[in-house]
Structure formats: C-alpha cells, structure tokens
C-alpha cells in the first residue's frame, strides 16, 4: 500500500522526536498503557498524550477502545514504508561505495609500478 505524500510527511514528522521514537521502541516489545509509556520519560499525562496523538495521526500507533485500559500498539505498515525507503537508499550507496573501493584498488594497482599517482586528467595537483 502506498502512502500519499502527506501521510509520509506526517510519518517523518512524527519520527523526528527522540521521545516518540523511544515510545515506538517500547511498543515494539508489546502493547502498553498510556501510564506505562509515560513512566520512563518523566512526562505528565497530557505531555505523553500529545506525543501519542502525533503518533496516531501518523498511523504509527493505534489505541484500544476499551475504557480505562486502552492499550497503545505499534502499527508496522507505516514504519515499513519508511524503513523500505531508507533501506533502499542505504543499499544503493553501499553497493556504490563497494564498487568505488574496487575502482580505487584497480587504479592504485595500475599506478603503483611508477610509484606515484597519475597527475594528469585535468585536476589541479594541490599537494
């Protein structure tokens, strides 16, 4: 399922806060009540509620309907989209870096017999 751009934007915004990321990390271990989530952060209940609302709006968590208990739970679909995108970017550049490494090794092999790097190719030699 593709998100609309606004949804993804909201997701990024929601992730852009260490407390909210810590809440998500806690929820990755299982459901928790608002009180349980507030505890480690030294936050007031209204304070934690504000964060939870943002996470809910971003589709990152849902809150149960049962009165009193109302546990929060992690919704993984939205995180998956962000994770997919970031992972793909990382993968592309890691592959490129690996190949740059190979190219550099080849170049150094070619140049080693002369003992010096190749000063041509039009770059200024600033050493």
């Amino acid at each position, binding site marked *: 399922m*593709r*998100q609309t*751009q*606004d949804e*993804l*934007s909201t997701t*990024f*915004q929601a*992730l*852009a806060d260490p407390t909210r*990321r810590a809440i*998500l*990390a806690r929820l*990755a271990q299982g459901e928790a009540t608002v009180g349980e989530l507030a505890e480690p952060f030294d936050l007031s209940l209204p304070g934690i509620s504000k964060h939870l609302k943002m996470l809910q709006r971003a589709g990152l968590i849902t809150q149960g309907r049962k009165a009193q208990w109302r546990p929060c739970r992690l919704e*993984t679909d939205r*995180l*998956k*989209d*962000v*994770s*997919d*995108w*970031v*992972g*793909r*970017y*990382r993968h*592309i*550049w*890691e*592959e*490129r*870096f*690996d*190949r*740059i*490494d*190979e*190219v*550099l090794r080849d*170049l*150094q092999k070619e140049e080693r017999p002369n003992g010096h*790097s190749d000063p041509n*190719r039009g*770059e*200024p*030699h*600033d*050493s």
Partner: protein
Amino acid sequence: MTADLTIDRETLQLTMSRVFDAPRELVFKAYTDPELFARWWGPARYENIVEKFDVRPGGEWRVIQRAADGGTHVFYGVHREVVPPERIVATFEYEPFAGHVMVNTADFEDVEGKTRLTVTTQYSSIEDLEGMVQSGMESGARESWDRLAALLATV
C-alpha cells in the same frame, strides 16, 4: 565494510559516508572521470552508458542504465559546484519524473592519507522521494522486526 547513514528527517536529507583507503585526488577522480564513474554507479546488473559528463559548473551529465533485457533508465542533471578535489554538487533527475530535482553533494575529506567521502542527497519534496521509492528496485528482503528495530536505532 559498511557505510554510515544519517537522516535529517525535517529536511529529507540523507547522508552516506565512508572512508576509502586512497588519496583524495584518486577518490575525486573515481567520482568525476566518466569512464570510472560508469564502473561504480550501478546497480551492477545494469550497464552504464555515459552520454554526457561535463564536470564543470553548469556542465551537464546524462547516464543511461541498460538492463540485460534491453530496458533502459535515463538519469541526468547539471553540475552546480566543482571544487577539485574537495567537492562536487550536482542535480539529479530521473526521466519518468523529469522536473523533480534532487541535489547530490559529494564531499572529499583527507583523513591522514585516506579519504572520507560523504554523499548527501537532498530531496526537494516528499513527492520526489515517493517517486524514487516507486521507481526503485523491487525490495527483495522480507520485512522483519529486526529491521524495524534497526530503523528506530538510526532515525
């Protein structure tokens, strides 16, 4: 060897960085020599055909990636800043999403004879980012809690 990835979520800017065991001039050359560029820009299963590669401020570049089945992807842009052997800034567009411009900045930093290469991609809008996601490679890896945890650790 892994690279460092950092994400600026507010600005949708992604940064990858790695130290290469080679002098800065050589890493810069690998990045700016069209023949060498074609060897690493990948993905590996595509052949890179460098049509234009004018590494000067205002100079255009255009690369066609050809898959084994003949399918092609066209990428192009303009070099904005060229400071050998320190920095290259170039715009990046993918033909099906022409007009959605990304800006790639590559910084080459001397680290005791080695070179730290830092590449930053600036997306101008979420829509551009989404376009790249959709045009990107199919994701082979199945999602797992590990990966979500890893994401939470990086963002």
